[in-house]
Structure formats: structure tokens, C-alpha cells
């Protein structure tokens, strides 16, 4: 468990040292949510319907925008070589990335969501099903993003390409995530993508270790 803890610790330290920390992601979400009433007007009934969509859009956007931080930044400056040679198990490296990335980029949204929902006059009972789906769905999305990032390490720095690969894979999560009753399917989907992601990311890392 020590290697797992160390690697998560390292990623969290990088996040805290640089500007890409919790505050950054949290303020990003707040900004997107604040933009919405300017587009759709201040009718609270309409805003309440849109709110759920905004949350899922912003979480997909944050997954897409931070995709290069999963493995690419470490690959570019050579830290990935260092990590690969110091840790025997690829699976632990990957699992550490899942946890660290989810904590840095998805947890802030889930934490501030109840407070943001106050702006749209939603009660806790309205927001609770969304919250559960968001926790499960964002984990699944992080699994998918990790293997996309690991597999596209050798590609040139093109966020568009990675987006084209990533977005179709995220669609099922969004579809089941938006529906409050489909959390069992969401769990199954996340578990499936976890299994695929472990194999695919390890394959990608092994290729770039070479």
C-alpha cells in the first residue's frame, strides 16, 4: 500500500504546488454555472431543469481539459520514466492516478454542488440523486479518461484528437448519469470500464516505457 500512497501523495503535491489545485477546478465549475442564467434568463423554473445538464457538461469539460495532466505532463518531462523504473507494478501506478485525478478534479464539484444548488432554489432531496450518480459516473469517466490518456501519449499535443476519442466513450455515462433511477447500470458501466481501463492503460504505459 505504500507505493499507492506515495504516488497519490506525489500527484496531490503537484496539484497543490501548481495552479491546478482544488480551488482552480472549483472556481471553474462556479464560473460555468454562473454563466448559465445569462444565457437562459433568470426564470428559476427553467434554470432548475437546466441545472442537472450544466453539472454533467462541466464535469465532462473538466475531464477533457485535464486529460493531459493524467499521464502526458509526466511523460513530457521524463518523470514517467522515473516512476516506471522505481515502481514494479503498473497497476498501482494506474490506480494511484485514478484516485489522485478524481480527488483533484471531480471531488471539488461534488463538494460544492449542494451549495451551488442553493443558487437555483433546489433542496437537498432534489440534489441527492444527482449527487450519487455524479460520484459513480465521474469515477467511470476518470477510468475512461485515464486509458485514453495512456494510449495517446505518443500522439502530438492535440487536445482535439483526444477529445474526439474521449467524447463518444463518455456518452453512455452521461446518458445514464442524467437519469436518477439508472444508478445500478451506472455502477455496472463504471466497473466494466475499470476492468478495461486497467488493461488498456497498462498496455499503453508498457508501449511508452519502450
Amino acid at each position, binding site marked *: 500500500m505504500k507505493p499507492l500512497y506515495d504516488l497519490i501523495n506525489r500527484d496531490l503535491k503537484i496539484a497543490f504546488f501548481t495552479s491546478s489545485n482544488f480551488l482552480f477546478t472549483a472556481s471553474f465549475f462556479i464560473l460555468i454555472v454562473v454563466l448559465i442564467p445569462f444565457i437562459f434568463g433568470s426564470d428559476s423554473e427553467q434554470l432548475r431543469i437546466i441545472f442537472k445538464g450544466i453539472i454533467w457538461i462541466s464535469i465532462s469539460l473538466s475531464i477533457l481539459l485535464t486529460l493531459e495532466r493524467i499521464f502526458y505532463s509526466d511523460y513530457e518531462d521524463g518523470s514517467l520514466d522515473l516512476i516506471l523504473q522505481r515502481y514494479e507494478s503498473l497497476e498501482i501506478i494506474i490506480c494511484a492516478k485514478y484516485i489522485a485525478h478524481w480527488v483533484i478534479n471531480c471531488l471539488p464539484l461534488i463538494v460544492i454542488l449542494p451549495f451551488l444548488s442553493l443558487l437555483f432554489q433546489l433542496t437537498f432531496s432534489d440534489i441527492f440523486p444527482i449527487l450519487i450518480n455524479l460520484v459513480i459516473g465521474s469515477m467511470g469517466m476518470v477510468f475512461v479518461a485515464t*486509458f485514453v490518456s495512456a*494510449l*495517446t501519449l*505518443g*500522439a*502530438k499535443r*492535440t487536445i482535439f*484528437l483526444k477529445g*474526439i*476519442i474521449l*467524447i*463518444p*466513450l463518455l*456518452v*453512455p455515462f452521461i*446518458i*445514464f448519469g442524467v*437519469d436518477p433511477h*439508472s444508478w445500478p447500470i451506472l455502477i455496472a*458501466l463504471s466497473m466494466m470500464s475499470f476492468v*478495461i481501463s486497467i488493461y*488498456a492503460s497498462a*498496455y*499503453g504505459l508498457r*508501449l511508452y516505457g519502450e
Partner: protein
Amino acid sequence: MYLKLKKSYFDVLDRFTPFLIIMTIVSFIIGSYFALYGSPPDYIQGDSMRIMYVHVPSAWWALMSYSVLAVSCTIWFITRNPFFNLIAKSIAPIGAVFTLIALVTGSIWGKPTWGVWWVWDARLTSMLLLFFLYLAYIFLWQAISNKDLASKISAALAMIGFINVPIIKFSVDWWNTLHQPASISKLSSPSIDESMLIPLFIMAFASLCFLITMFSVRLRIEFIESRISRLRQKIYD
């Protein structure tokens, strides 16, 4: 790992190409005649039904091409024979073109039938996502300069995409049942008259001939390209 295919195999393909081209053209002419004049209009949809004769074969072969792509990538993973990678690489753009045609003709059919160009129908939406899967595969080949690496990565992503196709289909169907108003008529009619089957099958056959022609041409291009790169290496070494 060298490409262990002899040049003569591809010369056979070269010899067959004119024959395939002629077959494609002839069957397209016959098929178009039947599709546009030789068959009666549908009694509900009228003449807009005729769009189906180009739309349906395109959708069939688009899906089939993706299956061929994914299966050959899987075989490549098991056998590591580079030939299967060439198959996948050469069929991808053709499949993408068929997907695009299916999307465009589908929305042209939608305008007179549904009154709008695009409906977030389950089939159209999953076709759109399939198109993105094709695009991702094609762009990945271009984005990675190391061709050996590109073949490994794109094969892995094609396989993951293939696992994802039924998931997308299932999820889009699910989403559709939740959000779709029931008034819109579905594409599939319960029984198709025999007079409509004839042009449909001829057009499907013609499109398949076109697909095979294009596939053999592209396979030759890829093969020549790999020969060129190997010759270059020989010269400059």
C-alpha cells in the same frame, strides 16, 4: 516483423480491379433504374421511400466495415501479423464515407417524412457516434509519427470502440425511450413489399462491389507505401 505477403498476391488484386469496377458501374445502373423508375412508390411514404435504396445499404456497409475493422484488429492482437493491420487501416476511410452518406441521406429522408432535417432518433444518434469512432481511428494514425506505435495504439482503440458500440446502442435506445415522443414513425416498417426488396438488394450489392473495389485499391496503396518505406531505408542505410 516483415510483411510476408508477396507482390504477386497484390498483382492478382490489380488484375481483378477493372472487373470489379465494371461490375460496380453496371449494378449501380441497374439498381438505380429499379430504385428510381422500376419500383412502385410506397403507399404511406410515397416516393421519399426511394431514398432508402441508398441510405440502407450505406448504413449496412458502414456497420459491417466497423466490424471488419475491429475483428481484424483483434486478429492482429493475437497473431501480430501486420497484414491484418493493413486491412483495418484501409477499410476505415471507406467505412467513414459510408457512415457519412448514411447520415446525410438519413437526414434528407427525415425532412419530408418527419418535417425536420434531424431528429435525435436512436439510430441517427448512434450512427453519429460511430462516425466519431471512425474519425478517431483515422486521426490517430495521422497523429502518431511512429507507424509501428500507431498500429498498436489504433488497434487497441478500435477494439475498445467495438466493445463500446453495443453500449452506445443500448444507452442511446434507453435514452430515446425516456425522451422521445412516440408520435415519430420509426425507420423500420413491419413488412417490406417484394417489389421494394429487388432494388434494395441490387443497390446493396452494387455498394458492396464499390466497397470491395475501394478496399482492394486502398490495400494496394498501403502495401506499396510499406514497400516504399522499406526501400527508402535500404537506400539510405
